């Protein structure tokens, strides 16, 4: 038997995932390059790494801080925007699957996928609260 053509639903989900990871990692890469351009001493300094990997570091970790830094054109902010987009990709995949299963008129899986998305939302809310 010859290799079959991929189904449209598989292709659609595959394309969404690919677009998500490529976009987010490109932004991460740009942010990383920008960080080195703004701080040329990172190429040669032997002490800078300690500051950069300090667990009590100064990197942004609130949504507002990330947004402000990214708008300022700071490399770290841009990296964080890319990482957040990366984190959002699997969630977007679940949401998108609901549409795919509805188009396929697959009621059982529409329900299953909606429950998964609700469970995910719950864990995000619990995470934000905890």
């Amino acid at each position, binding site marked *: 038997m010859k290799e079959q053509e991929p189904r449209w639903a598989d292709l659609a989900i595959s394309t969404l*995932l690919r677009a998500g990871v490529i976009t987010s990692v490109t932004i991460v890469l740009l942010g990383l390059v920008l960080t080195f351009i703004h701080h040329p001493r*990172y190429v040669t300094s032997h002490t800078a790494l300690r500051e950069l*990997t300090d667990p009590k570091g100064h*990197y942004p970790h609130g949504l507002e801080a990330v947004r402000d830094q990214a708008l300022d054109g700071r490399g770290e902010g841009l*990296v964080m925007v890319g990482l957040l987009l990366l984190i959002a990709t699997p969630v977007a995949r679940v949401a998108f699957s609901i549409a795919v299963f509805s188009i396929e008129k697959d009621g059982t899986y529409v329900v299953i996928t909606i429950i998964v998305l609700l*469970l995910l939302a719950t864990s995000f809310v619990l995470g934000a609260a905890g």
Partner: protein
Amino acid sequence: MTPLLFVLAVGAISFAAGTLGSLLGLGGGVIVVPALTLLLGIDIRLAIGASIISVIATSSGAAAAYVRDRLANLRVAMFLELGTTSGAITGAWVAGMLHPRWLFVLFGVILAYSAVAMLRGRRVAREAHHHEQRLAKRLALAASYYDDARGAEVEYEPTRPMLGLVLMYLAGVVSGLLGIGSGVLKVPAMDLAMELPIKVSTATSNFMIGVTAAASAALFFARGQIDPFIAAPVAIGVLIGAFTGSKLLGRLSNRTLRVAFVIVLIVVSVQMLIKGLRG
């Protein structure tokens, strides 16, 4: 070490983690965490934050190829995600009440058992309950994929979906409790309970782990455990690795894949036992 050298080293390690992870259905934390903490002296909390990024990048990068190639079973994944996501919530809920030490020991023992079970292979023709088979039919889990190594279309019919769901719930609890990717538990559950071909198990696990990790990632981000300077080279290296690995999976033989997975199971099992017994 200069920051530039650090970025290059982390990128190279992550490339290896992404390649291995995409082949075996794991997120690469097995490699990323020890490499960052032991080799590069990074704080464990930041290393775990970076490894969650590694899981998501491996998952989405590899799954993009596996879904298209029909190696990942979308329906099996969606059905089992009911278990992993609800398990992860339970795990996060009870995390404060239990001492992680004994969980690591328990987890190590479970993995060692899975390694032995997977190595022995399946007993032939175990009778599945009728209602289980009815459920598998109702969920339309049966599918087929084109196996490059054999050069043939392989049809398969997953068995015992309820047992699979319960095991996935437990895998989810473990991820929620211990903050580790649960690919090492997902693959044996699909392999032993649902009797999927090993390639389908690792590809489907890859597809699923990103969702479990995304929920924890939000928490790590809010806690400030995601350091952009560490996570950036991890994300880039892992994604290139995952793209590379996902081109290889179809061509590897099932036997090679199974042996490689068992070796990783043993390594993680020992890591967990040491962690638990040392306290």
